[in-house]
């Protein structure tokens, strides 16, 4: 008995939620359903909009007005669209990294920290090699950003593969280490001497900033992100590595029997995952904020988890969901001018994830007639 419990056997007993024969139907857990239906993300978003509509209504506003204002704020003008895309870039890059790891059930929630160290490392280039030409400084910043993110990912991967440490814990904790490192450099050695003692690095020169599109803030990081999406898609689809990943994701036991080196895959996947988040940090600091500062990321690394999950880890889906969440952030500020707090967009994000996860569970149940 105790051994059964230890192996989690009790959890695997069929789950029946119907009360003893009173109702003409019962709920039965259907273990054959491994994949959730394609419509769960869409229904989740719809339910989240509906739930938040109740709160908007309770605030004395019309949900239709609020949602349409949000939509117009994010997509209604060319300015709104470029700003939405600016937000989508870090979400897409982090989401992609998260998707790679989640594909083989490596639960990396450290994208926020990996992004932060990427930004710090990219800034290090501007501090220690201030006079490089545009090409070299951007290239070096890219390399440093990706390498730092990957290293941060490695700090999660090695303890997992070699000491069995849960990656949820390490990746989360490393987020705080990264944020404290950010505080250290912005308050300490890298503080702008002309910054009136406010924390933050000196503002980057043009040579250290990513090129932008016209008079907007949309930077070349968008192309980097889209290239990453294509590479990810091709790798998963057409390489032996991608094939092995898919097998591990579908059935780790079978993968192990087939001789796939799972530990090695975990390390590779975390390197990629961290590297992509580190790249997001580099593009954010070099393309948007133009200096290293506190509050560089308003939680992109966490939001990207929702983005990745909503896309069902699908690369093309990720493009859609990251733009959608970028719009949610931009539109969230727009609704303030009609008198709602911006937290409405955070509420929507939370509600979407909630319904999504609930949907993954609920759709595995079947209603059967008879007790």
């Amino acid at each position, binding site marked *: 008995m105790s051994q059964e419990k230890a192996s*989690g056997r009790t*959890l*695997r007993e069929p789950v029946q939620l119907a009360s003893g024969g009173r109702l003409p139907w019962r709920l039965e*857990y259907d*273990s054959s359903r*491994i994949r959730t239906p394609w419509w769960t993300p869409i229904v989740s978003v719809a339910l989240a909009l509906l739930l938040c509509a109740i709160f908007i209504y309770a*605030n*004395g*506003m019309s949900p239709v007005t609020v949602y349409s204002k949000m939509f117009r*704020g994010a997509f209604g003008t060319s*300015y709104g669209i470029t*700003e939405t895309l600016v937000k989508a870039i870090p979400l897409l890059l982090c989401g992609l990294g998260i998707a790679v790891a989640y594909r083989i*059930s490596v*639960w990396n*929630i450290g994208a926020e920290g990996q992004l932060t160290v990427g930004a710090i490392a990219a800034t290090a280039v501007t501090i220690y090699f201030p006079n490089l030409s545009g090409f070299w400084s951007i290239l070096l910043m890219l390399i440093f950003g990706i390498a730092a993110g990957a290293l941060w990912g490695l700090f999660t991967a090695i303890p997992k593969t070699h000491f069995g440490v849960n990656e*949820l814990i390490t990746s*989360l904790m490393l987020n705080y280490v990264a944020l404290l490192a950010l*505080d250290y450099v912005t*308050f300490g050695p890298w503080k702008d001497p002309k910054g*009136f*003692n*406010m*924390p933050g690095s000196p*503002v980057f020169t043009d040579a250290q900033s990513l090129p932008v599109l016209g*008079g907007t*803030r949309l930077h070349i990081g968008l192309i980097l992100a889209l290239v990453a999406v294509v590479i990810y898609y091709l790798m998963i689809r057409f390489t032996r590595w991608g094939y092995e990943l898919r097998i591990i994701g579908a*059935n780790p*036991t079978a993968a192990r029997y087939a001789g796939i080196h799972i530990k090695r895959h975990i390390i590779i996947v975390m390197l990629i995952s961290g590297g992509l988040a580190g790249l997001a940090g580099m593009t954010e600091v070099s393309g*948007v*904020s133009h200096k290293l*500062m506190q*509050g*560089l990321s*308003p*939680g992109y690394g*966490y*939001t990207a*988890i*929702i983005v990745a*999950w909503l896309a069902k880890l699908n690369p093309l889906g990720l493009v859609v969901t990251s733009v959608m969440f970028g719009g949610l952030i*931009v539109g969230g*500020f*727009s609704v*303030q*001018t*009609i*008198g*709602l*707090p*911006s*937290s409405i967009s*955070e509420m929507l*994000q*939370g509600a979407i*994830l*909630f319904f999504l*996860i609930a949907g*993954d*569970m609920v759709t*595995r149940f079947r209603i059967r007639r008879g007790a």
Partner: protein
Amino acid sequence: MKQRGQVFKLSFMLLFVLAIVLAGCGGNNNAGGNTGASSEPTAAAGDSAGASAQPSGDKPKVAFVYIGPPGDGGYTYQHDLGRKEMEEKLGIEAHIVENVPEGPDAERIITELAQSHDIVFTTSFGYMEQTLNVAKKFPNVKFDHASGFKTADNMGTYFGKNYQASYLTGIAAGKMTKKNHLGYVGAFPISEVIYNLNAFTLGAQSVNPDIKVDVVWTNTWYDPTTERQAAISLLDKGADVLLAYQDSPATIQAAKERGAFAGGNDSDMKKFAPDNYLTNPVWNWGPYYTKTVQSVMDGTWKNEQYSGDMADGMVDLAPFGNKVPEDVQKLVEDAKAKIISGELNVFTGPISDNQGNEKVPAGKTLTLEEVLGMDWLVNGVIGPLPK
């Protein structure tokens, strides 16, 4: 069978992830519980909601960018009071955007507001670069930035000599302390906070030469949880009267729990702990906002660098707490009268810094420019300035 166990495990993991994500989202918004005065924001929001529907005629469209929520009970709350006064006096309804972080997001929000408004007030120091950038792109829109020092043809600044009120608060604190040990919760080690901390210390020393002041930097304008922790740590070190240069009344609430005295900043915070309240500097933005928007209506707006003071009322002192004795109040009121008349100047020498260097020789008074660029701590403040 294995598969289902996997599914359950997966769901648990995801629930955990959900919890983390929500915690992450909630992190920078932990305002509600601690601040108390939360009845305001919805009302304020409701007011501004109607604005877009109302045809404004030749009345200017006005927007405000806030660092915190109007319900912070402090800095943003006072700006919002000023906005309401301006709205009432001029029959205008302004738009507000709250909780705008001092990073890249601010530039987008200021840009959006600039597209549909005639004047935009950006009410926090960290909006300076962003306001300047947007001002360059919208030459026909007026911008007014609080507490900064950069201007453009269409961008002015406004702030006030709140150190005068900090000095007066210091007098009260110096009289009220039993241990000659004061505590100061500072937001950022920037000039604005430094000259207020210095004025507070000088005020206390003017009535009590043995005073020492401990300071904790929170590195945030508005985060009641952090402010509270800073206040508690100062009390633990033995300070018995606190002043906080922060946007929320968290320090006063912490002092109340420990039976100490405290003041806050920006707003009359007596109601949060009447028996433990000292007093503190308050802002009165209404007349300035009214005057400035009026000048936009009249076409006489200029990109001035406005600095208000106790004489014109932009800076004032909050009413005293219940336990501040009459004689102390009298002392402070006398000094206030001297400041208003110009007889008393806060930064008149001799003043030396806490490293032993003389900074202001006897008989000399710092210029406003020197005050605004202050980067040293007066003697009596403990610890070096983080640089």
